[in-house]
């Protein structure tokens, strides 16, 4: 967050313009953001209550200290609770740190401060990425609901939601999830449903199971689901080989090799201990390396699909002077800057292959790793993180997920001081801020933006806020090309949903696709829930409409997963801007013809609603057998209300 808000144009090199949503929305003042996570590190400056007024009178929450009498809330961090009975029921007795909302893991402090942390100047990780850390809603109040101790269990998550709704949060940030279960067998979906019924906007992370298709989690239409992409900052560290080849990796290593001195390079498989397998040694697993072979050399480890950071510790323990961490093909292609304990550089798969080839074909391979640097204005940005989970939605393919993408790679935000930055027990270093990557990190960026929108438009429904965020998103990067994957291919809405979030545009979307609780009940009718079941969570008798169809669910994206011949879908837009006439512009998916009726919509007042129909036809029988992508834009010349169109012919 020392760079991401600049990248999202809320500021320009630290200068906040009067046109920024930050200024217009008073930095999220009066909004309360709750976070279901690993708790909070209350002593972090991100949660300082300097210049904060009295706690809003509507707040009903508490500061639950548990066994930690030193835990303090304040006028910024206005509430904290912890829930661990669900964990205890499965994992058995736990350590005393679980009996407190204190974040001993780091994740919860990072996500909460990204959503609503106060301004903290001079934030950096070992000198890298220096700047002012701040949340998306830096003047919002925040509350921590610790639902993750030794794991995050459904029973605890549900308890967290129940209390957060009761306490009076306006926004809930949920950077966790699991398998794609049916909505009412999924604690996050159930909790979100109740929250949204109470006007609370729930933002969830899409998951880190990419880049495979159909991996996205948090699939309910009442959740805002967020994928992860890069920002325009990198921490390059070069691996220079003895054969003059050079590869750009990334790192946040504090230690550096002596200048211009090349060291012997050894592949980890060649450094295996006598009792270890070459496969395990290649991954630099604990106890698999022979210190006699490693000492004084740069070790090349394969990343694999397990944790990256401990490999550096294993390399250091074995006596390596440095480490090259090479991606394998399974781990995608992105490279992550981590605070390694020795000079190290994380390189991509193709470069890793070249390094291994060099090691295997050279009698005395030599290498040098340069000290990392903070590099800004990198291009292209954003591109999708390979780990970011992708659609299609496996529960309701008619709803596109994720909804949106936001910065989630190498995000610097507040951290716990109970753990080292690598989360390993042996890392005795302590940091006030840490760089972390994941959809967990992109989710609270959107939560912070939602906090601003809540302050600016307190009467907008959660669906209207989601619509504003989605329809104002962009699908081009900072070189005005379509957003790509980390493999340099064009990304699709299955990666980024409606696109990359643009907060300044979201505050004035022009039109919104709104939804009420009844629309969600109708959606459940269309999914096959019977009237008796729906009555259980509808508070009052509810009759399913006979004409309910998932195709006509008023979602801001349009997805037709089995187009058989043709289909007409209906949408209704509400004017939240100024009077004007909007005209439809369609970008047709390959092999599909689309017509919009009417082709223009005239709005005379705010709050006015207009309905239109979109007819999609298979033009060429063979052309759309796989998913194809297009878009619909309504524009009055000032606003551009964009919806992705995703179609697959039956």
């Amino acid at each position, binding site marked *: 967050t020392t760079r991401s808000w600049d990248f999202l144009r809320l500021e320009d090199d630290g200068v906040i313009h009067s046109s920024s949503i930050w200024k217009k929305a008073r930095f999220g003042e009066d909004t309360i953001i709750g976070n279901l996570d690993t708790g909070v590190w209350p002593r972090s400056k991100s949660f300082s209550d300097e210049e904060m007024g009295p706690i809003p009178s509507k707040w009903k929450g508490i500061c639950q200290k548990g066994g930690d009498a030193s835990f303090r809330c304040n006028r910024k961090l206005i509430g904290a609770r912890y829930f661990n009975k669900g964990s205890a*029921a499965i994992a058995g007795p736990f350590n005393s740190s679980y009996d407190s909302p204190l974040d001993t893991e780091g994740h919860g402090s990072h996500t909460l401060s990204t959503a609503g942390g106060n301004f903290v100047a001079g934030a950096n990780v070992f000198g890298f990425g220096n700047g002012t850390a701040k949340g998306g809603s830096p003047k919002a109040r925040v509350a921590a609901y610790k639902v993750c101790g030794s794991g995050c269990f459904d029973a605890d998550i549900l308890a967290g939601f129940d209390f957060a*709704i009761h306490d009076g949060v306006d926004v809930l940030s949920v950077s966790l999830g*699991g398998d794609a279960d049916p909505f009412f067998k999924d604690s996050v979906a159930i909790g979100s449903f109740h929250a949204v019924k109470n006007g609370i906007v729930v933002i969830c992370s899409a998951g880190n199971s990419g880049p495979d298709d159909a991996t996205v989690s948090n699939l309910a239409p009442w959740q805002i689901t967020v994928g992860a992409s890069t920002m325009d900052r990198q921490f390059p560290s070069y691996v220079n080989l003895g054969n003059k080849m050079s590869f750009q990796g990334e790192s946040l290593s504090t230690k550096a090799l002596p200048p211009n001195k090349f060291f012997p390079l050894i592949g980890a498989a060649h450094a295996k201990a006598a009792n270890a397998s070459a496969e395990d040694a290649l991954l630099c697993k604990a106890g698999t390396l022979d210190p006699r072979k490693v000492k004084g050399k740069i070790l090349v480890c394969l990343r694999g699909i397990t944790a990256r950071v401990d490999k550096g510790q294993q390399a250091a323990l074995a006596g390596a002077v440095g480490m090259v961490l090479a991606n394998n093909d399974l781990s995608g292609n992105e490279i992550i800057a981590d605070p390694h304990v020795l000079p190290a550089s994380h390189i991509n798969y193709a470069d890793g292959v070249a390094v291994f080839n060099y090691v295997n074909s050279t009698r005395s391979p030599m290498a040098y790793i340069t000290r990392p640097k903070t590099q800004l204005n990198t291009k292209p940005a954003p591109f999708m993180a390979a780990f970011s989970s992708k659609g299609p939605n496996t529960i309701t393919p008619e709803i596109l997920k994720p909804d949106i993408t936001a910065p989630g790679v190498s995000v610097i935000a507040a951290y716990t001081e109970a753990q080292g930055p690598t989360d390993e027990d042996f890392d005795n270093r302590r940091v006030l801020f840490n760089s972390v990557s994941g959809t967990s990190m992109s989710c609270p960026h959107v939560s912070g933006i939602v906090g601003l929108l809540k302050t600016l438009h307190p009467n907008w429904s959660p669906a209207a806020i989601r619509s504003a965020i989605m329809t104002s998103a962009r699908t081009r990067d900072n070189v005005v090309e379509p957003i790509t994957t980390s493999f340099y291919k064009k990304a699709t809405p299955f990666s980024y949903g409606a696109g990359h979030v643009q907060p300044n545009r979201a505050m004035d979307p022009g039109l919104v696709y709104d939804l009420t609780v009844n629309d969600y009940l109708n959606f459940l009718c269309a999914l096959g829930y019977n009237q008796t079941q729906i009555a259980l969570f509808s508070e009052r008798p509810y009759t399913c409409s006979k004409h309910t169809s998932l195709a006509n669910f008023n979602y801001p994206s349009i997805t037709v997963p089995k187009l058989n011949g043709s289909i007409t879908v209906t949408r209704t837009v509400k004017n939240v801007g100024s009077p004007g006439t909007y005209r439809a512009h369609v970008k047709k998916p390959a092999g599909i013809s689309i017509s919009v009726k009417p082709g223009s919509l005239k709005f005379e007042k705010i709050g006015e609603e207009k309905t239109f129909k979109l007819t999609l036809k298979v033009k060429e029988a063979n052309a759309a057998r796989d998913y194809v992508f297009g878009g619909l834009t309504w524009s009055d010349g000032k606003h551009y209300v964009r919806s992705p169109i995703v179609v697959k012919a039956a």
Partner: protein
Amino acid sequence: RPTFAIQKSYVVYLGVHSHGPEVSSIDFDQVTESHYDFLGSFLGRKKAKDVVFYSYTRHINGFAATLEEEEAAEIAKHPKVVSVFLNKRRKLH
């Protein structure tokens, strides 16, 4: 029945409460009692009180309890129940 039936923890989701949003702590206690009553109709009230480890009383209607698989399956059939599901581990992302 086996002597040592396998017990697992489950969430029993009952939808919304009949009480409105403005309720007192006394009402919350009543909700918890109603959860014991409901589960007690399957297990007996004493056992129900022993096995429930969460009673969701504010906005979400339901409870979490340690149950045998057969008990969970039986409870899931009740018309007042929306769903019964295992208390599973979710991941930080």
